[in-house]
């Protein structure tokens, strides 16, 4: 009998895909903080476009899962994000 090859269905959950895009952008930033505005602009360089509200939800979820850390820069008052060690581990294959 010929063995059947099962192909994995492409992952289509838009929110999970958005979170993966966020992790991918933050990955090369290493331990530095990236401000939310730059993150938002970077995300919207490619399609599909992302609204600010969706980005905020994605960031909050990733933070709740301890994949992201955030702070408010004392001088610029901008919210900044970076990957936690577990976030880096998760983003490794991306």
């Amino acid at each position: 009998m010929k063995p059947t090859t099962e192909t994995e269905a492409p992952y289509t959950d838009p929110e999970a895909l958005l979170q993966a895009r966020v992790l991918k952008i933050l990955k090369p930033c290493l331990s530095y903080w990236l401000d939310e505005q730059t993150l938002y602009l970077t995300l919207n360089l490619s399609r599909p476009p992302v609204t600010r509200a969706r980005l905020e939800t994605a960031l909050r979820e990733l933070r709740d899962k301890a994949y992201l850390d955030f702070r408010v820069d004392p001088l610029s008052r901008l919210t900044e994000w970076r990957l936690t060690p577990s976030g880096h581990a998760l983003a490794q294959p991306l």
Partner: protein
Amino acid sequence: MNEPTPAVRSASTNPLLALPQGQKENIFIWLREGSDHEAINIRLREKNLPPATEREINSFFTQYAQERWHNRLGRAAVEADAIISQVRQDRGQIPEATLAALGQEAFSQIASGKATAEDLARYTSMFLRAREHDRSERALDLQTQKFHLARRNATEKALDAFARELPQNPSALQAFQQLKNQLLDQTDHLEEYE
């Protein structure tokens, strides 16, 4: 088979995206400066490069801008680390918290596109040079002070030696002591003027 004409080439075979990095960067800069389709093709011809359609030029600009932006984010962290290492190697103690703040500032500036890595490296070396210059000036001041002190001691020593040679005449000795004090006083005033 004939080569596809520029009009029917798809975005994936965009010849502009296959050019060497330096040429892609040049075309990107020309476009950013506002060169139109015709102007780009004239410049491509000057460089012995094949002409491109308007669609290819537009698609190149979008794709290359994205690529460039992502590369910038990646480079920002690398460049910030490099700046910290450069400053850390410099003589003198710079607190780790200051270095971390400097690295974060360098990263933020490069990542947001407000400054290039080269600009920040230049500012850092200017800062280090200024610091070095300040240290040299302070070292020079210290050296000058030492020189004045040595000159004063030498004068005093010479005069003492001379005094020992004087005949045992109290009035001559007294006059000599006055002269000595006067001379030392003058030396002190000279230091103030210098």
